[in-house]
């Protein structure tokens, strides 16, 4: 983890748990509890990008929403700028909230079609009660994300997917956040357009110094943008550490399998690669496996894996992983 003695992290998440209680499907009285996030801890330094990867349902979005307190965690603490978000008053929460923003996957759904782009971008300023005329600010935000001043008067349907995502980013930037959670921010975009938006994130960070939690399915995009990566599986972090180490020397079998499943756009390399084929699908988060949650699909699993839950341990290559039989 980052050296917190010298430089306290911007965000610190400790022992985060989020359970969803749902009525049983057949209308019975037994409630089902979805363990969406179980005992997740990580830190994000100022100006740093943490990538959050893992298969569908692994809890990435839930972590992001808990961090922003869009949903209440079941337990655990989220500390932002040194303050425990569970113990701040309404006024302070309001202040902290403007420093944390989120950008969603779907640029189509996240903008109000009836509002001009300018009004959409100014909305957070209005909601936060920032005084004054926001026109100038809106223009500077549009220019910051690579759009033009006269785009402010137009409506979302007049823009392409990549442009709409830029509008969403401009809106998130309106309140000068210190942290932006980017939840699959380029997944809905064409490859040729994705690259421009990814560059935009990098440029903005270089200029403004904010931190990102970058959630994505696309492991190659995460590798490109993240300083550190956390790999989630069924609500838990399996491995976390510097991006280069996690990608080059994965120590958790799941990380290894995940990376080996991602096709490389180079036929020579791709056809020579050995692949680890995982059997079956991810088990249900309502009833996760005992011990290690990955054991039902793991080729290294032993009796120990079924009985004792592995904890995150530091490996020689500099990352933490939770496995009884780590890769060397």
């Amino acid at each position, binding site marked *: 983890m980052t050296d917190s003695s010298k430089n306290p992290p911007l965000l610190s998440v400790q022992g985060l748990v989020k359970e969803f209680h749902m009525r049983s499907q057949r209308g019975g009285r037994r409630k089902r509890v979805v363990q969406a996030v179980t005992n997740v801890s990580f830190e994000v330094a100022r100006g740093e990008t943490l990538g959050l990867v893992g298969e569908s349902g692994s809890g990435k979005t839930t972590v992001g929403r808990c961090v922003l307190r869009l949903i209440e965690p079941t337990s655990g603490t989220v500390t932002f700028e040194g303050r425990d978000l569970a113990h701040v008053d309404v006024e302070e929460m309001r202040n902290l909230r403007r420093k944390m923003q989120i950008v969603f996957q779907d640029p189509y759904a996240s903008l109000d079609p009836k509002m001009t782009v300018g009004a959409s971008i100014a909305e957070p300023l209005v909601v936060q009660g920032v005084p004054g005329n926001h026109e100038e600010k809106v223009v500077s935000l549009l220019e910051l994300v690579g759009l033009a001043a006269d785009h402010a008067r137009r409506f979302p349907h007049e823009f392409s997917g990549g442009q709409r995502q830029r509008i969403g980013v401009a809106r998130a930037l309106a309140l000068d956040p210190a942290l932006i959670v980017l939840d699959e921010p380029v997944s809905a975009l064409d*490859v040729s*357009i994705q690259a421009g938006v990814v560059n935009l994130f990098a440029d903005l960070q270089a200029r403004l110094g904010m931190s990102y939690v970058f959630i994505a399915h696309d492991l190659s995009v995460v590798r*490109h943008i993240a300083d550190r990566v956390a790999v989630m599986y069924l609500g838990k972090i399996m491995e976390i550490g510097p991006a280069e180490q996690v990608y080059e020397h994965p120590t958790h079998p799941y990380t290894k399998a995940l990376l080996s499943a991602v*096709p490389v756009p*180079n036929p020579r390399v791709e056809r020579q690669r050995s692949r680890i084929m995982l059997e079956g*699908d991810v088990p249900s988060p309502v009833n996760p496996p005992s011990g290690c949650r990955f054991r039902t699909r793991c080729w290294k699993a032993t009796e120990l894996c079924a009985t004792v839950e592995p904890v995150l341990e530091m490996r020689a290559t500099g990352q933490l992983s939770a496995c009884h039989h780590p890769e060397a």
Partner: protein
Amino acid sequence: MSAPVLEIRDLTVTFTTPLGPLAAVRGIDLDVRAGEMLAVVGESGSGKSVSFLAAMGLLPKTATITGSVLLDGRQLVGASSKELRAVRGQLMSMIFQDPLSALNPVHRVGDQIAEMLQAHQKLSDKAAKARSVDLLEIVGIPQSGDRALQYPHEFSGGMRQRVVIAIAIANSPKVLIADEPTTALDVTVQAQILEVIQKVQKQFGTAVVLITHDLGVVARVCERVNVMYAGRVVERAEIGDIFDAPSHPYTRGLLASLPQAGVERLSPIAGFPPNMLRPPAGCAFRARCPHAVAECGETLPTLRQIGASHSACIRAEEVLTSS
């Protein structure tokens, strides 16, 4: 080189829309050879799905189709809906991104496979049932006998896509069109489904058309590639040439925009695709193209041979030699 089983010639598809005619497919030539794994890639909205929906006779009445689609010598453009029904599932099948849309939620999956079998073959119920269990086994569903009795909602996303493949290949079609079959799946499940599709291709000699955005997937399983842009095929090449020596600027731009280890800054393609309600004159990529010259706006470029590949760029020679 095996002969084409599906021959598409000068296919156009135009939709009647409230805003006027939309030229979705603007004259494509494309061959699918028997038993091959062919990739169709390209920008969103470039006409990949519409081209093959047209071939399958699955487009709404608002679509006007011209040109020729020969499947094993039969003309499909202008064929009656009865003829097309006989072809679908028998000679050519299509699967999609969302397996649920292809499955009937209230029928057991085994019955759905049996129904497809009996629609095209004279089979007793018993034989159809036994064959559907075999098919589930072929696509890698364990305990296929028990699973045949279950309903789609009892299957995971990956397992549903396997069921859809089982239905699609039930009658051993000559061509399987797979339109983004793994886009909605996790990578570990995607790897499994790609293996199933490859197994079908190899074991039964089914030609597969794989429509995808993912050039990594193309690199993994395909032999030849057609690249589409704005309703046209702009490049056609063997897999190695597409990646090593792309001869159309769009293909080059697409490859350059991918994140690569060691590359600090990504290179997007500038601008956006044209509005197909008003397609530009000449090459549709011109406004985004770093190689464009005035001549590019004059005539619609057609595919021509460049080395071992085909490119629809009038400057393909320069493109190939530029760094």
